């Protein structure tokens, strides 16, 4: 059963990723990415990381991709020409690079499979909110603070960049 679910989700993830890269229309690309993220969240569930599965949807699909869609709609980007309309050397090179990196990674991962990889039994506990939260607020307190700082700075900076011509010194409320 779980094998079938995995195969389904994996095929969905890969197909939506490919569709995202190939799609001419930017909105379609964004929606395929959302589909990809949702299927990844499903895979997280298979790995018993429930908290991250939910967070994946909440943050990626619910926030980041909505922002993407907003920007795409705002800019009203027109369709590109299809990737396959014209062959370019660039594509070939990119494809080769991709294949090379992939085979290299696969080869490296092959060394891992000697280690009897399975979902550890303690993962049932480790994937819960409590487990993640406890570590997050004790061991990883400092990065947590810094990430809060980063998010504040990012919003602040993004406002500054995206706003149209605020005069320095002018109040901008």
């Amino acid at each position, binding site marked *: 059963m779980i094998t079938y679910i995995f195969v389904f989700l994996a095929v969905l993830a890969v197909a939506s990723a490919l569709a995202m890269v190939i799609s001419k229309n930017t909105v379609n690309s964004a929606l395929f990415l959302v589909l990809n993220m949702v299927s990844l969240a499903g895979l997280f569930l298979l790995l018993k990381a429930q908290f991250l599965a939910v967070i994946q949807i909440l943050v990626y699909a619910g926030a980041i991709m909505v922002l993407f869609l907003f920007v795409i709609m*705002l*800019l009203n980007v027109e369709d590109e020409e299809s990737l396959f309309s014209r062959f370019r050397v660039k594509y070939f090179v990119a494809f080769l690079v991709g294949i090379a990196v992939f085979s290299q990674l696969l080869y490296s991962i092959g060394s891992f499979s000697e280690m009897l990889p399975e979902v550890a039994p303690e993962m049932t506990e480790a994937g819960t909110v409590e487990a993640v939260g406890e570590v997050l607020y004790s061991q990883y307190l400092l990065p947590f603070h810094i990430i809060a700082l980063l998010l504040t700075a990012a919003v602040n900076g993004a406002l500054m960049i995206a706003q*149209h*011509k605020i005069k320095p010194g002018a109040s901008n409320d």
Partner: protein
Amino acid sequence: MDTKHIKNDVDPKFLKKHQESLYDALEDKHTTVEILDEDPLNTKMVLNMGPQHPATHGVLRLILQLNGELIEKAKLDIGYLHRGIEKIAENKTYQEFMPYTDRTDYLSPYSNNVAFCTAVEKIANVEVPERAHYIRMIGSELSRISSHLLWLGTMVQDTGAVSFFLWTFREREKIYDIFDHIGGHRFTISHARIGGVANDLTDDALAMIKDFVNEFPQELKDFHGLLDRNRIFFDRNRGVGVLPTERALEIGATGPTLRGSGYAYDIRDFEPYARYDEVEFEIPTRLEGDNLARYYVRMEEMHESIRIIRQCLDKLPKGPVRTDNAKQAYPSKDEVYYSMEGMIHDFMMTDTGICPPEGSESFHSIEAPKGELGYFIQSNGTGHPWRLGIKSPSYANLQALEDMLDGEMVADTVIMIGGVDPVMGDSDK
């Protein structure tokens, strides 16, 4: 987007020339305001609101140039309900024209009748009996309440509270019933006649009016209770569509729109017609000039109308309701049915009608619910007016709308239309 774009972007399918001139006007308007913003991202678009739109009170058409949710410029296009009423009048006797007046501002037909009658009476020097004056006043004030009730319902509905519409319509229904008993018509009543009114108030009608006058203040209080302290309603109306006094005068706004802008002009008080000089009432006036001010003005006017009706009922004199002069008014039905002369007079009235002196002209205006409603009549000595002009309040008030819309938000558009309270039949004639 520079202004050239707007015209190129739209491709009108009908009335091409007119449409293009409209878009031109949109571009020309406020040429003093330079568009410094050369941002390719600014979300300007031209929104065509109406003439078929659920919230524009008929066939008003607004062309809005939007920047996001903000209205940068607005252009009004009126005339979709033009029926040539003024021209029709030239082919009708004065009395025959009466039903047409009902159909200009169809929310307050009685006031229109009275306005037209007084104008004709002025040009033809017709004396009107006392009792008729009072009946006309009662009718006018009732129609004022009816008109304001409709304004209240639609305006509140425009802000989003749908049920209010039905509550105010229940009250209007009572007024319709009263009109039914007064003149035999619920809506287009045509009760006033040149030289008086068609018939005396029946006892039924009087009783109903008394009942209404006693009950309505309580309803009004309920309306106040629902709206005055409703924060959402308050916030949506306050500071919206501000029309300064000077601007209102320049544009020629009248009625509650003008009084909401702080100019206490009311013809009932300044140039009393009928017997308004004999009753006591206040002229509700607000200084703010925003939509909330107009709301208060109209609400208080309803109070004043009730007060006037009460006084009229108290003072209602006995006597005839139509002038006895057979050259100036229809004889009563008794005379027509039972005397030869009466029948001849009736025949003459219907055939030729009242003939004001040749070359005379008159203008008379009254305070209709929407503002100053005036009829201008030129006579060539026949029973038809040579020229007839209507100074309609909606037309004047709509001119203020363009001014008020600039710089407001799209969501305010409908409220402002509601606040100005135009009736397209009145404006387009």
